[in-house]
């Protein structure tokens, strides 16, 4: 085999491979139906957050099925992309959804960092982005003017804990020790709680920050101050499962309260009796005793085998909101700005209760203070752990009672803000 013939063969093989690549990569001209509504959905489908992603998709899809895939007359094309809980991948997949699938909007993301990565994409591509889960405060606060095509349907981190701080004062707690995951979501949750708790006379006397992902709290629990009246915790994922157990095993007798994710229904079924009596605050509880929620929980559980968490409810309600806008426009896509404006003007009765939007496009909704109890609910025959609602704060916005301008003047809640004046 002479060099020349070999070279030609090599080039030929490469050329054939290239032609194949070319054919594969040139996007097929599949005609997008003119009046169909294309919704892109970004969620982690593989990796450590895969179950969260599944719950999110399930929530949205349940609503789609109830409306037979039709929002206000427009057939819905629902495209789910795996963003693997990696912000750069979410941006990549968002670009694919926008440029290749020509979606009208993209929904989802889980982590705050994903929210921050996707928000600029919506501005750059002039496409609607609906963060149904990312709760980073500034997305709809100090950075909201950068993201005119963003409307949030979930919550902001500090939103539920503002009223919760007041509730803590009402319980007579004077000094509280805080132990929370050491990252932005933890800071914003603790910051919101601290601000309102100290504004009504309480004192945060300690802040402990175990790194995100800590599962052995051995180093931290013994350092909790003995003179605290109560312990406030913010835990996520596996942390929320292990912390209460280890706290109980260490002989804790103080009341434990926490941020919404510490006891939400994603982890609750796997917890034991050690969490009975723990109180938290969130815009949703699966034990919300309303006919609408009862129907939602029963249908979801029958279909997917588990009690829905706020991951599912948030996306179910997002689907409902999109549907309501499309109903108003008679099934025609009104354009991104008009869509955002239309959704922002909605007032709906969702599974979690009444939902409307404030001027920075964050939901205004009920916040439920909920306590973990073991009982039977909704006709199920087993005693299970449920987050019983013990108090409702209606129509809570992201600024609580502080007023938008005053609130935005202060810096975003961080590890050092509000400062721990009473920490020794």
């Amino acid at each position, binding site marked *: 085999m002479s060099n020349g013939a070999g070279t030609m063969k090599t080039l030929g093989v490469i050329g054939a491979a290239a032609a194949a690549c070319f054919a594969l990569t040139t996007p097929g001209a599949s005609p997008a139906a003119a009046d169909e509504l294309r919704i892109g959905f970004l969620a982690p489908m*593989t*990796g*450590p*957050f*895969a*179950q*969260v992603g*599944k719950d999110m998709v399930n929530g949205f899809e349940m609503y789609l099925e109830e409306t037979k895939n039709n929002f206000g007359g427009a057939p819905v094309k629902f495209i789910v992309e795996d963003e693997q809980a990696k912000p750069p991948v979410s941006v990549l997949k968002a670009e694919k959804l926008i440029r290749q699938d020509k979606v009208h909007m993209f929904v989802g993301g889980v982590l705050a960092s994903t929210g921050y990565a996707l928000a600029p994409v919506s501005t750059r591509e002039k496409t609607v982005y609906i963060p149904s889960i990312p709760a980073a405060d500034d997305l709809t606060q100090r950075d909201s003017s950068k993201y005119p095509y963003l409307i949030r349907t979930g919550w902001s981190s500090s939103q539920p804990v503002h009223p919760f701080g007041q509730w803590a004062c009402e319980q007579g707690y004077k000094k509280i020790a805080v132990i929370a995951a*050491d990252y932005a979501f933890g800071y914003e949750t603790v910051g919101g709680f601290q601000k309102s708790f100290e504004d009504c006379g309480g004192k945060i006397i300690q802040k*402990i*920050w*175990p*790194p995100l*992902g*800590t*599962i*052995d709290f*051995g*180093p*931290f629990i*013994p*350092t909790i101050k003995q003179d605290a009246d109560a312990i406030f915790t913010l835990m996520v*994922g*596996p942390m*929320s*499962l*292990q912390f209460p*157990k*280890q706290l109980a*095993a*260490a*002989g804790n007798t103080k009341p434990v309260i926490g941020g919404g994710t510490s006891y939400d229904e*994603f*982890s609750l*079924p*796997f*917890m*034991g009796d050690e969490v009975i009596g723990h109180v938290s605050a969130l815009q949703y509880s699966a034990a919300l005793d309303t006919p609408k929620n009862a129907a939602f929980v029963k249908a979801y559980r029958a279909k997917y085998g588990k009690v829905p968490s706020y991951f599912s409810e948030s996306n179910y309600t997002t689907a409902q909101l999109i549907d309501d806008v499309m109903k108003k426009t008679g099934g025609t896509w009104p354009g991104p700005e008009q869509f955002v404006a239309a959704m922002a003007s909605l007032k709906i009765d969702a599974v979690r209760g009444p939902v409307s939007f404030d001027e920075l496009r964050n939901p205004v909704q009920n916040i439920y203070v909920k306590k973990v109890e073991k009982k039977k609910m909704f006709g199920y025959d087993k005693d299970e752990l449920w987050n019983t609602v013990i108090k409702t704060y209606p129509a809570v916005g992201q600024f609580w009672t502080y007023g938008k301008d005053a609130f935005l003047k202060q810096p975003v809640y961080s590890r050092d803000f509000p400062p721990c004046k009473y920490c020794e």
Partner: protein
Amino acid sequence: MDARFWLLQTFNGLSYGALLFLLGSGLSLIFGVMRIVNLAHGAYFLLGGYVALSVIWSTGSWALALPAAALAIALVGLVMERIFLRPLGFDPLRQVLLTVGFAFLFQQGALDIWGGDNMDITPPAELTRSIVLAGLHLPVYRIFMIGLAAVIGVALWLAMEKTRMGAAVRATVDDAEMASGIGIDTSRISMFIFALGSALAALGGVIGGAFLGVYPGLDFQILPIAFAVVIIGGMGSLTGAAVGALIVGLADNFGKALFPEVSYFTLYAPMALLLAVKPTGLFGRE
């Protein structure tokens, strides 16, 4: 920071170290005998936890889950060693990478089989209590972990020092060529050690499951820590694994309690420095 604090932190560090010993001893043995760095070790740990959960769900017995998970994963390790690692011969890099490839496959498989929820193993009620000793609340489960690790450690040591099989293993660790030259069936030893190492990891996963949880991502989260144990203690040495586990358990615990901001750094930086001075670890050979 009174005496209570120090005592409690030491106790916690010891119990964490006990778990790490289970995890690290297998890794160290596998390396000692076969010079393979098993990057699927974290996956074995996690799979042990998952198998235990399945056993508990179907039979209700936690006690049964321990040997069942260990055996199941030992089998997986055996298959992997025989069918996939053996053909590669002595090629450490490719063997390492093969174990990684499998780690990814196991991760996805576990997700598909057990789902992605954050789960937790519930041990029998007697173990979930705490005893109060001199004003300190000591969870019985942590005492159990220390006890179990000690028992297994002693058993392994006795097997290595006092049995013929153990002598054969030690010979293979010291010099595989010589060992096979004097008639030791090194390939059978390799197979046995790989299975044992996997079983130990799985056992760690079952024990750890009640303490750390069982969830996707735990495999790659625990892997660098297992390596810290083995690197500090020295590859191939059982004593090294014990000492390394103790050091890592205590250092991690105290590091987090006293300097939480730089907690990961306090683990890996000393490790790197130790390696700079003694690349084979405290008790390693070569």
